[in-house]
Each structure stands twice: as C-alpha cells, then as structure tokens.
C-alpha cells in the first residue's frame, strides 16, 4: 500500500502514459456533504481487451517483463475499498481506459491527500509530450490545469523539463488548491 492519495495518482497515471496515451485527464473531487473524495483518471491510451481487463485487478498480472507482479491497480482498489469507497475500471481496446476510485473522507482508513501538486508536476516533467489535464474540485469550486494552456505562455515544450519550471508549477498548483479550501472555509482536508 502507498502512503497517500497523491502517490496512488502518480502510480495510476503512469499506467496511462505507458499505454501510450496522448491525453490524460486526472480529476480529484472533494465533496464535504457526501463526505466523499473521488478520483478519476481517464486516458486515450491503447486500452485493454476483455481478458486483460478481467485480470488487471489481480496482483499477479502485469505487462512488464522485469517482475511478475503488478501492484498499482490492486493497491488503489484495496485502499478505496478499505475505507468503504468504491473502485471501477473500464477500458476498450484502442480507445482508452478510465479508472475511478472513491474514498470515504470520514473513514479512519481514508488516506490523506498528500502532495498532489508534486504528483502532477512529476507527471508533467516525466512525460512532457502528453497533454495533461488536472481538475481539482472542492464542493463545486474547481481549479483546472490544462498543460496546453500553460504551453501558450511558455512557448516551448522542452522547457517543461526544466527544474525551474517544475518547481514553479508545483507551487502554482499548491496555491490554487489551497485557495479552493479557503473559499470553503477550510476544515483542514488539504493537509499532507
């Protein structure tokens, strides 16, 4: 199991780029009324056929050759289910994959959010050629980060790999996320 939600997001989104996705949407929603945190990672990668999709929640299924275990999806599923949440995965060969997970915010086993900004910045640095979209919603107010929009200002995709940009990006996301929590009156859910 991983330490926090931001680590699960990093791990699951990496599956998308390994599936050769050119566009990945990561959506994280916090709903105080429903006491629910929901995560959705949606990509336009190579997708999976029915057989692989059936096996993918099994830790002994993986497409890589270095080891015969694949723990990413089983970890996320276990984390979600252990706090009365939900886990869904849908995929179509050639079209893409959607992973959805829900976490009960008031459950004792609900993982903390962690450093979501660092996760998004890491993904963008690691796979700058992918169109990343990150949406963070807190009780109806949302922050949207569309990498293609940032590129209009930055001009050059190559700069996405520069340490200065990545550090700026991390702070930019962090700021915007905490602004949403302030709007809400803040009940301290954005803690690390």
């Amino acid at each position: 199991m991983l330490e926090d939600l931001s680590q699960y997001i990093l791990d699951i989104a990496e599956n998308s780029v390994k599936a050769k996705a050119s566009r990945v949407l990561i959506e994280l929603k916090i709903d105080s009324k429903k006491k629910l945190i929901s995560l959705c990672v949606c990509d336009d990668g190579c997708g999976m056929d029915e057989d692989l999709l059936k096996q993918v929640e099994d830790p002994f299924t993986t497409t890589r050759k270095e080891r015969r275990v694949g723990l990413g999806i089983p970890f996320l599923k276990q984390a979600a289910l252990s706090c009365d949440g939900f886990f869904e995965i849908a995929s179509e060969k050639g079209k893409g994959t959607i992973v959805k997970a829900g976490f009960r915010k008031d459950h004792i086993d609900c993982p903390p959010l962690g450093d979501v900004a660092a996760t998004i910045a890491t993904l963008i640095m690691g796979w700058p050629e992918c169109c990343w979209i990150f949406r963070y919603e807190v009780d109806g107010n949302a922050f949207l980060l569309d990498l293609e929009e940032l590129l209009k200002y930055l001009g050059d995709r190559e700069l996405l790999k520069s340490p200065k940009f990545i550090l700026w990006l991390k702070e930019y996301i962090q700021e915007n996320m905490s602004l949403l929590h302030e709007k809400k009156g803040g009940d301290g859910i954005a803690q690390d």
Partner: protein
Amino acid sequence: MPKIKSLEDLRKLREESKDLTSARSGGKTKIIVGMGTCGIAAGAREVLSAILNELARREIKDVAVETTGCIGMCQYEPLVDFIRPGEPRVTYGNVEPKDVPRLIVEHLINGKVVWDKVVGRTD
C-alpha cells in the same frame, strides 16, 4: 494566502531560458529516477523534488532529468541513475532526499562516484 504565482511568470521563464537551447541535445548528463510503484512507495517523488531543487539552486542547466518505471531492483528503491557522457552508467540505491546534494556535488560536478550509495555500474 494571496495568490503570488501567475501565468505571466511563464513568459519570464521563457525569456530567462533562451540560453538553454544550446545545451539541449547530445552530450548531456542524464539523471534518471525510478518511479514505478516500488519507487513511489519508497519515496522516489521526494528524491526527484530534491534533485530539481538542487539543480535549480545551483543553476545547473545542462542536465536532463527523467523518470523510468520499475527496473526489477525494487528492494533498492529509490533508485537514481547518473549517466555522464562517455562514462559508465552508475546506479545509486536507497537514495534519500538528504543524499541528493552530495550526489550532485560529487558525481555531477566533481565527477567522482559516491561508492557507498552505488548498487550497480555498467561499463
């Protein structure tokens, strides 16, 4: 908290980085951080942050930082590879953020391998 980061910062960053183009391809040192499930669980993202901080702080520009998936040595994660042009690839294991300044100074700047953190070397 007042919002201090704006998208306009990016235009400035673009101006500042004009000299980057020359250092872009070929002959560049590579730093590769393992970011598979095992790496993430062991704290690889924090190690990557420490590397970026150190490079930015020292204004080191001619280094390409990359991430990779699991390479099958999960027990040694976080794993960080240093590849200097024309030299063997050196793999450091169990790297913590506190080790990063030493690796950058010794290996990257001074060109000396930090042997106590090495788990593999390919010639």
